[in-house]
């Protein structure tokens, strides 16, 4: 078939110049080779693929790394006491980073972990990613398993008091980065991971998060403000009994962003919340949130809350699914995706899905697109607030429900300020 041929040609062209990282322990080599084989069999995403209907993957596939102007960006989370880990053009930078030491936490470079013959990562690398290919192809995640050389490996054994902050920096206009983070939260342990900064002109990050019973993992991410960024990210999470997973992403700008979060609730009474706010200005802004939550245990709760503010021809995409397996009784699933279109040129494309095989569940989903509320705008103006400021307030109000998903009030405030200052500069 012509289409299949085109797809496999494109895949071959993209992979031809690449080779999987050399060295590493046998298990790591095996995982990478297995990934490469799977990727060759599956093929890279093609714009005719159903899962890529709203987002053209072409930018992720060019052989040459796209050039992107380097934008100055604040490091982010400056007001939080963190363990800072810096990656420059996708490579760990020891000098700019804090010492990799923290009570209740084992932390090391991915590049180091994969050279060790005995390591817990052996049992996890590619495992959640492979499981996440069930029902939907995620070739860019396999790409990450095959080609990622660096990243962070974190194992929380207790309540880790300081968040780990991964800061991405960029020095080259054509920096390409493929990063892999591995996270294991042990029974009763707690960890907060923050991410911020400009990753690369083309960034592919993958994260596998395995949360044991009673564990808690919090993830707050600010995607860099560099406009010419292309980023494809995947977070795979597996939740044990009574465990918690919470992830929030703030995206300001970015011409091509695809954030996929794939969650499986494996233990009873687990809770998973994934949320995000994206603000886009301009015809070349494209932001895609793709979420897949599988309920595979009893009495679990999941929430998806996504808000997008779009103007001047910006495009926002949401693909969200809740899958409830036959035994996942007492499931409580919620999904909402909303867009605020500040003018008539902006686009919001949403595909909310529920697939339920259990009979005692509570699932709801909604998706809306709307303009700014003129009555509220007049109310604010009648109190002396100028139109642009009044509009900013209403934008902040619109994304408030998503920001409320962040448990830590200090972190939520940091993101709120980022948002407010972005709005002010964008007037």
């Amino acid at each position, binding site marked *: 078939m012509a289409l299949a041929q085109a797809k496999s040609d494109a895949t071959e062209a993209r992979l031809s110049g690449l080779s999987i990282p050399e060295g590493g322990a046998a298990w790591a080599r095996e995982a990478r080779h297995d990934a490469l084989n799977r990727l060759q069999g599956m093929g890279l995403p093609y714009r005719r693929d159903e899962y890529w209907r709203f987002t053209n993957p072409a930018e992720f596939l060019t052989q040459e790394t796209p050039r992107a102007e380097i934008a100055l960006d604040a490091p982010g989370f400056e007001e939080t006491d963190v363990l800072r880990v810096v990656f420059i053009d996708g490579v760990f930078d020891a000098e700019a980073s804090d010492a990799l030491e923290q009570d209740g936490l084992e932390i090391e470079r991915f590049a180091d972990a994969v050279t060790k013959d005995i390591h817990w990562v052996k049992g996890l690398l590619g495992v959640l990613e492979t499981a996440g290919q069930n029902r939907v192809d995620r070739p860019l995640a396999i790409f990450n398993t095959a080609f990622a050389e660096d990243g962070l490996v974190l194992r929380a054994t207790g309540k880790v008091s300081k968040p780990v902050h991964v800061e991405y920096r960029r020095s080259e206009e054509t920096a390409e980065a493929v990063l892999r983070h591995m996270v294991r939260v042990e029974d009763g342990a707690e960890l907060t991971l923050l991410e911020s900064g400009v990753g690369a002109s083309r960034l592919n990050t993958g994260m596998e998060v395995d949360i044991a019973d009673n564990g808690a993992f919090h993830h707050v991410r600010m995607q860099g403000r560099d406009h010419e960024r292309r980023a494809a990210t995947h977070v795979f999470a597996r939740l044990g009994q009574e465990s918690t997973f919470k992830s929030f992403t703030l995206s300001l700008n970015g011409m091509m962003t695809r954030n996929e979060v794939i969650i499986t609730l494996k233990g009873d009474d687990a809770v998973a919340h994934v949320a995000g706010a994206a603000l886009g200005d301009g015809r070349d802004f494209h932001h895609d949130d793709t979420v897949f939550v599988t309920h595979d245990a009893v009495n679990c709760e999941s929430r998806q809350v996504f808000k997008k503010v779009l103007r001047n021809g910006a495009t926002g995409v949401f693909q969200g699914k809740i899958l409830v397996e036959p035994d996942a009784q007492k499931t409580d699933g919620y999904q909402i995706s909303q867009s605020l279109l500040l003018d008539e040129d902006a686009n919001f494309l949403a595909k909310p899905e529920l697939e339920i095989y259990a009979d005692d569940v509570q699932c709801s989903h909604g998706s809306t697109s709307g303009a700014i509320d003129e009555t509220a705008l007049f*109310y604010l103006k*009648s*109190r002396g607030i100028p*139109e642009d400021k*009044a509009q900013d*307030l209403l934008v902040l109000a619109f994304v408030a*429900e998503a920001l409320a998903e962040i448990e830590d009030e200090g972190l939520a405030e940091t993101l709120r300020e980022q948002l407010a200052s972005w709005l002010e500069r964008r007037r």
Partner: protein
Amino acid sequence: MLTIKDLKVKLEEEDKQILKGVDLEVGAGQVHAIMGPNGSGKSTLSYVLSGRDGYEVTEGSATLDGVDLLDMDPEERAAEGLFLAFQYPVEIPGVGNMTFLRTAYNAQRKARGEDEASAAEFLKIVREKAKDLKIDAEMLKRPVNVGFSGGEKKRNEILQMAVLEPKMCILDETDSGLDVDAMKLVSDGVNALRSEGRSFLVITHYQRLLDHITPDVVHIMANGRIIKSGGPELALEVEKNGYAELMDEVQ
């Protein structure tokens, strides 16, 4: 203070004349009441004065201390000292009441070339005014008007008025949806703000609000015009005989 001359207004969307020549002069420190049946144009007058979209002024003028109001954006009118207490205060989820108040306060100060108040300074100002209106701190923390009772919403309007210190206050059916106690609280708030330099235009359907806020002048509005003006006794007359008789009498 407020001078309205032969104001004629139609709806922007359809060719429907709402105000057919309104003349009104509210002096400094005075309280004027406008009463009238539904559809007489009372609320339209308040919206046109505060600058809401959707209306077209076809003739006439409205000035505040000689400054042409009709030429300005709503926020400029506010900075000039005009305030409209809404009949239906708008709920704004996600915006804290305190943030809203401070943003408005500082925006007006900035527009007038005055220094903005810091968070701490402002908190002090608000706390004092809120206490008088029996508005507790919890209400200040909540999003603007969200989950407020009818009485709380109207008290919140008066709080905004107290904080922003306008010179011309328009109260649009402030009594609607209030029970007796809430009406007293709101009226006390308004009365406390009465001063030589501040005028009020109280738009109401019923006379009962005027028992609490005693007007200097009462106007009866019908069919887009002020058909009769008089002292407080005019309100009592309306209460007793209704609008119909008065309208017949004028015709």
